[in-house]
């Protein structure tokens, strides 16, 4: 494995003894117990310090979503190795975790405000408090004037902003994001990435961000973990030393950004071709 010396990011000044997320030799097989179990994830180990933003990048089927689902506790597939979220075994409905998907999954019968408050409602936050916080978050993602609009009246980008508001309104310590901008057009994506950066700077969560978009991973993350095609192995764990706060739009013309991109692209290519 091509591990580079990972200097902890300047922002995350927490003792490395208490990682927010820790995977130790995680190995997963699908169809365990059948005649032909498929090795999906092969001995993956990494950890995140509290407040760290780490992306998992790799080709389709490299197990990045599987790892994320395991962390959410949604997946009950047997696995070897140890997985810890804030020191505990993952379980679904853990209030320390907020989860965001590629599709906005807004409830069409709720207004933007109702959707932004939905997560808090499920978790039992009192009505006045959740309404106030949902509205605050909608303002932060630039949807303050659209609080009473139904999702059908919102564009794709606005809907995903609303999903961001719902996710951050939960105030969970750990955010797990599965290609949250994967369904957006290139321009909207850049805008939303900047919205995410602003939110993250303001709220300082630990984020695991799954994407197949290398540029997105570099622009957002403190570290990028590159995975190979199935079976998913870690090829590299690369620190991104671009200064913060970052503007994803401005980075598009930054030469260090492009150097990192070229470097990581090489690793990614290697991971894709290794398998063939």
């Amino acid at each position: 494995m091509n591990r580079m010396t990972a200097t902890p990011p300047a922002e995350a000044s927490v003792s490395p003894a208490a990682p927010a997320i820790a995977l130790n030799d995680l190995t997963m097989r699908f169809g365990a117990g059948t005649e032909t179990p498929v090795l999906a994830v092969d001995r993956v180990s990494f950890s995140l310090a509290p407040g760290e933003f780490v992306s998992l990048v790799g080709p389709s089927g490299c197990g990045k979503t599987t790892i994320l689902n395991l962390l959410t506790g949604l997946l009950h597939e047997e696995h070897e190795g140890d997985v810890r979220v804030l020191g505990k075994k993952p379980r679904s409905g853990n209030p320390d975790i907020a989860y965001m998907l590629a599709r906005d999954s807004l409830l069409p019968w709720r207004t933007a405000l109702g959707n932004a408050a939905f997560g808090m409602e499920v978790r039992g936050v009192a009505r006045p408090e959740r309404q106030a916080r949902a509205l605050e978050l909608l303002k932060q993602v630039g949807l303050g004037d659209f609080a009473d609009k139904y999702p059908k009246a919102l564009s794709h980008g606005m809907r995903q902003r609303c999903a961001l508001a719902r996710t951050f309104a939960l105030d969970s310590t750990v955010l797990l994001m599965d290609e949250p901008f994967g369904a957006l057009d290139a321009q909207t994506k850049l805008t939303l990435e900047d919205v995410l950066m602003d939110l993250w700077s303001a709220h300082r969560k630990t984020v695991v961000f799954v994407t197949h978009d290398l540029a997105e991973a570099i622009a957002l993350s403190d570290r990028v973990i590159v995975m190979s095609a199935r079976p998913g192995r870690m090829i590299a764990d690369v620190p991104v030393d671009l200064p913060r706060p970052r503007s994803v739009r401005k980075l598009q013309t930054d030469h260090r950004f492009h150097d990192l991109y070229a470097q990581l692209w090489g690793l990614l290519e290697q991971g894709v071709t290794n398998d063939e």
Partner: protein
Amino acid sequence: MSKTVRLTLGHVVFIAAFIGLWEFLSARGILDPTFFGRPSGIVMYLWNGFIVERNLWTDLFYTILAATIAFWGGSLAAILVGLLFAMLPRVHRACEPYLTLFNSMPRIALAPLFLLWFGLGIGSKIALAVSLTFFIVLSSTVAGIKGVNSDHLVLSRALGAKPGQVFFKVTLPSAVPIIFSGLRLGLVYALLGVVGAELIAAEHGLGQVLAYLQSTFDMDGVMALLFLLALLGLSITIAMNYLERKLLVWQ
């Protein structure tokens, strides 16, 4: 002139021309009033029935009453059973073949049976109407609950929603539009069931009047009754459309 005004005017002109032509052809003996009735006779019949003799009010009342009872009873039962099926999928699977069997039989054939069981009063037509409405609303309830977006379920589970929360905050609201379209159809079929039963035999009701008029060759009356039933169906549809717009603003 706005588009709607022009459109309305167009319809008025068309209907007036249609009725005028009908009246004209009947008067000249080209269209036989024994088989087609004539507009002036139809109006006279309705005038007599509603204003002079007032006998049609009772029949209209019985038809509407029976359809309303059948609609509410059948729909409520269907929604409750649908929810029960959602909670107990094994019961649903066990019942499914019988439901399919019953649902695929032409329900009007049950009318003679219901007449024997419940008599000529309001009971037999309600039974027939319920046998139609119930299955329509049941299948839409089941379809609505099954059609819940799996993303919404994943999200709810990830948030830690309890089964009750998932059901009342996600599954049920997402099923409402489909249940509603079932209710709309169910109401139309409730009317169909009631009138169908009345045609065969009943004490009161528009269907019974219609059957009587047909047997006495009163074509003006038959046409008047058909017009009345069409109007009744139309008002149901308009009312349901209005309700849907009010209840489902988010669609």
